[in-house]
């Protein structure tokens, strides 16, 4: 990279272009407008924050609330246990998340198959999504975690974490399948026509033309489901596995202080934010590579 690259773009041109007074005036005006907008936004944020702070701090029960919810000593004490529990949530999230994406995609694709030969597969996929999307997760978990071991099958695990993971995967892949299907159906039919006209088979059309566009469109709702899954991984604690929330609950009920819950909650929030920013960044970068010119 030469120093030329870093020069102001207007001056980097070699066609003798000099910004006119009109341009400079306009840019000054736009800068001023941006400054004003930023100042207004900052001020209104500040005012809102101060008002909220005053309302909360001056509420009659604030002292008591602070002791039970925001006690630094308890937070410090709870942190190691909560983090240890979190490790379980993370493992479940990664394994279940991967399984959910694969299974969800397979289900979605199965539902788009055309032709009578695929009717059983299509019907099965439809029945699956209908059933598991409607079944409350907690009931699904109870059935799988307590029902499967009760069968006393040889060689089938009774580990509540594994069974809980299976139950989560069953429910979430039904959700995710519908998200993928929405994406697939949002791709304009002309795209499919163009791909088929090139001689691509149904499968290759899906693989190279439809799915790449479909997946790109459903990234935000997909992330929604993954974040939701991340939080629901805590439900495996109904069978006794200790995750972050259950670890907090143990401490909270022993010490009569709710600070561990706040700690666990903040950690969950802190985990999802980088994930969201990362996908935003990836999709924004993809958009930039494709489009030229301004947006309206």
């Amino acid at each position, binding site marked *: 990279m030469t120093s030329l*690259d*870093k020069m102001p*773009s*207007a001056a*980097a*041109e070699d*066609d003798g*272009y000099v*910004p*006119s007074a*009109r*341009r400079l005036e*306009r840019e000054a*005006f*736009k800068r001023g*407008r941006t400054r004003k907008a930023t100042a207004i936004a900052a001020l209104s944020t500040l005012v809102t924050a101060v008002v909220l702070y005053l309302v909360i701090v001056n509420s009659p029960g604030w002292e008591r609330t602070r002791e039970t919810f925001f006690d630094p000593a308890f937070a410090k004490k709870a942190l190691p246990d909560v983090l240890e529990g979190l490790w379980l949530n993370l493992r479940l999230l990664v394994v279940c998340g991967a399984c959910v994406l694969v299974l969800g995609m397979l289900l979605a694709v199965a539902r788009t198959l055309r032709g009578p030969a695929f009717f059983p597969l299509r019907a099965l996929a439809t029945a699956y999504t209908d059933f598991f999307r409607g079944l409350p997760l907690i009931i699904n978990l109870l059935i799988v975690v307590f029902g499967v071991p009760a069968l006393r099958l040889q060689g089938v695990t009774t580990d509540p974490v594994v069974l809980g993971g299976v139950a989560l995967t069953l429910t979430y892949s039904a959700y995710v399948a519908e998200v993928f299907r929405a994406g697939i159906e949002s791709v*304009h*039919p*002309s795209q499919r026509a163009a791909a088929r006209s090139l001689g691509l088979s149904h499968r290759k059309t899906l693989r190279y033309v439809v799915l790449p566009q479909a997946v790109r469109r459903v990234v935000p709702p997909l992330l929604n489901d993954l974040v939701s899954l991340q939080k629901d991984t805590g439900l495996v604690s109904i069978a006794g596995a200790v995750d972050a929330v259950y670890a907090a609950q143990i401490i909270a009920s022993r010490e009569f202080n709710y600070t561990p819950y706040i700690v666990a909650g903040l950690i969950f929030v802190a985990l999802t934010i980088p994930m969201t920013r990362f996908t935003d960044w990836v999709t924004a970068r993809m958009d930039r590579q494709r489009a*030229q*010119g*301004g947006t*309206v």
Partner: protein
Amino acid sequence: MTSTPVLRLESVRKTYRARHKETVVLRDVDLEVPAHTVTALIGASGSGKSTLLRCVNLLEEIDDGAIFLDGDDITDPRADADAVRRRIGVVFQSYNLFPHMSVLDNITLAPRRVHGVDRAEAEERARELLERLGLGGKAGEYPDRLSGGQQQRAAIVRALAVRPRLLLLDEITAALDPELVGEVLSVVRDLKEEGMTMVIATHEMGFAREVADQVCFLDAGVVLERGTSAEVFGAPQEARTQQFLKRIVEAGRL
């Protein structure tokens, strides 16, 4: 006072920036479009014709210079872009009809939601225009069920429905077969008869020659040559223009 031109461009400069690299798309472009005249922009693909039209409709922000619509500087950051666009109609090369709406709804969207025309009146005007452009029976159809020429005519009706002061046509026949080209161009011819002010980016040289009062030849973002259609097509001065027109003639398109 002599009448102000409907559209005037003054030393317009437009660049695109991608990863520290800057491309100048329009350089010092001056243009005047008097009322009730047709200006044709000709030139190779990538010479900046479409960008110029997009700048006029404020879909792109220009870097320098100014664009005046009826004497008002519309590129001033204080100008209301939506108000400007209300006075300009645009027809795009790839139609850009809304696929989720019927033709009639496509056409009445802006009159009803932007200009506050009531439904009955908007639909009456839409049907009248559709009839005139030979789409009488297509009001209830969805865009994807129409042929290219029909879609393009529907797009023209959509632009006309709000009675624009200025109509921008961006290579509107580029995606059509010769028969449909004739169909769409005759619509443009009729509009000229009615006195519509238009700026047309086109590859149809014969049409540009016939219909344009003013022809501008763009090359690499610069208006290299301009004049009446007889001047530019009959006796081009610039070597680049001569070369371009010669190629067109060789290709049998003039």
